[in-house]
């Protein structure tokens, strides 16, 4: 397999993310003004990520492990451009499909059809592209008979299927998966895993967050281990997981 290694798809350089929480929550403008004058605003700085460095190349499968609150989700948010790093910088080349947020912006009063377009444009697609792919999306989500009913009449599984179908219809350059995404029933789960396996074969870069260590080890070649926002180790899956287990047991 030819992997283009000239330019990494994701370059994370010294990225730090700070959540600044006011010591006591200031609700009002007046209170803020008074405290500002008195210079008595105290913050608790919480570094969710601290000087993370990572380069991810095309076609790589990277696992992200670590205990709760280690900064895994924050890292994914930085990569999917929701949070801008407080320090350092990040460069992402290519289309990112964040499977952590299926169906962002779904409006339950609108029909399935309208929501495919709305959600699709939120993900950054053009309406023309969505129109061309519309039938395929509906087929995959198995919602042909319901596509003109309002979303509020859908079951949770149907909504999830629709979200997955829109987000994964085009092969993304970078796929972000948080935990084991369990979408819909058994059969649909099988279908969605097949689709992701297909992307893998075609050179999509995958970032995979999970607590299921055996699964991560079997899927990913390389792993980054985060703890308290610090990168503890980056390296081959087996080594990092062994190190991780030694320390956590």
């Amino acid at each position, binding site marked *: 397999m030819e992997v283009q290694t000239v330019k990494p798809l994701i370059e994370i350089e010294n990225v730090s993310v700070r959540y600044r929480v006011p010591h006591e929550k200031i609700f009002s403008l*007046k209170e803020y003004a008074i405290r500002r004058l008195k210079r008595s605003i105290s913050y608790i700085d919480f570094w969710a990520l601290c000087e993370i460095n990572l380069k991810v190349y095309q076609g790589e499968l990277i696992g992200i492990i670590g205990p709760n609150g280690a900064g895994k989700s924050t890292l994914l948010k930085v990569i999917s451009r929701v949070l801008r790093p407080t320090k350092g910088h990040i460069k992402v080349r*290519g*289309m990112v499909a*964040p499977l952590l947020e299926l169906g*962002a912006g779904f409006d339950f009063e609108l029909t399935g059809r309208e929501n495919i377009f709305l959600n699709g444009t*939120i993900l950054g697609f053009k*309406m023309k592209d969505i129109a061309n792919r519309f039938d395929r999306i509906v087929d995959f989500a198995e919602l042909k008979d319901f596509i003109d009913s309002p979303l509020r009449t859908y079951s949770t599984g149907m909504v999830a299927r629709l979200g997955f179908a829109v987000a994964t219809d085009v092969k993304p350059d970078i796929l972000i998966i948080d935990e084991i995404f369990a979408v819909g029933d058994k059969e649909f789960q099988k279908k969605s895993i097949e689709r992701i396996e297909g992307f893998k074969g075609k050179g999509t870069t995958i970032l995979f967050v999970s607590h299921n260590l055996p699964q991560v080890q079997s899927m990913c070649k390389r792993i980054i281990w985060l703890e308290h926002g610090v990168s503890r180790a980056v390296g081959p899956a087996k080594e990092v997981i062994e190190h991780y287990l030694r320390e956590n047991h």
Partner: protein
Amino acid sequence: MWKQRVTMMEYDSGLKRSPLFSELIELFRYRDLLYLMTLTSIKRRYKRSTLGIIWSLLGPLLTMAVLTIAFSNLFRFSLINYPIYLLSGLIFWNLFTQTTQDAMNSLIWGGNLLRRIYVPRTVFSITAINTGLINLFLAFIPLAIIMLILRHPFRPALFFLPFAILLIAMFALGVGLILSTMSVFFIDVVYIYQVVISAWFYLTPIIYPRDIFPAQYVWYMNFNPLYNLLELFRVPIYLGLIPGTNTILAASLWAGISLLIGFWVFTKKADEFAYRI
């Protein structure tokens, strides 16, 4: 495959580009989203109740009827065709207040989206303005009917209106962006603005004639941006004239300043929104 590479997105947080400029580029890229969000907000407004459209037509008419009865008899204003004077003022006022308030509320509502996925942050405010402009066309229907009933002439000066509306929209967008930015950090702004708006209503000659002010104070009206913008909107409808050069200049200046400051402040702070909302 290669074609897809060309249109490939690239995101570089280290890029030294002005946030205002980047936002404009992103807005262009997400123009289809802007269109769909406007459509959705119109649908949301009119879908649920079949009477939705009728209400939005009747609302200003009823307000106008009540105020006409109250003021034209009580104060005996020296205004001919007072209902048209009043209704054009109210339409202007509704456009400004609805769009600015919508812009603010939709960002707080949209916060849910901003924490989950990237979209250009100004889409919420711009959607609010677009929606207001579409509602404006509906509001012109009762105005036209009243003008026909009162035999008020339709003059060619009405062709000036699109320009007036453009300036009003620019001004409202700027104010909306500033308010949205402030409300992310201090939710009080939402309530303060309501108070400001009701005071502003009475400081602007919407329901009363401008002459009510003593002549030496009229000049101070230039400090009220809504005064010049209102004149720009009302003069072609009510007097059938193109507004004076001074009015046009002052209104353009206010619109430009507001939009520039609004965009600048908003885009400068927009990266903090996801942390705050």
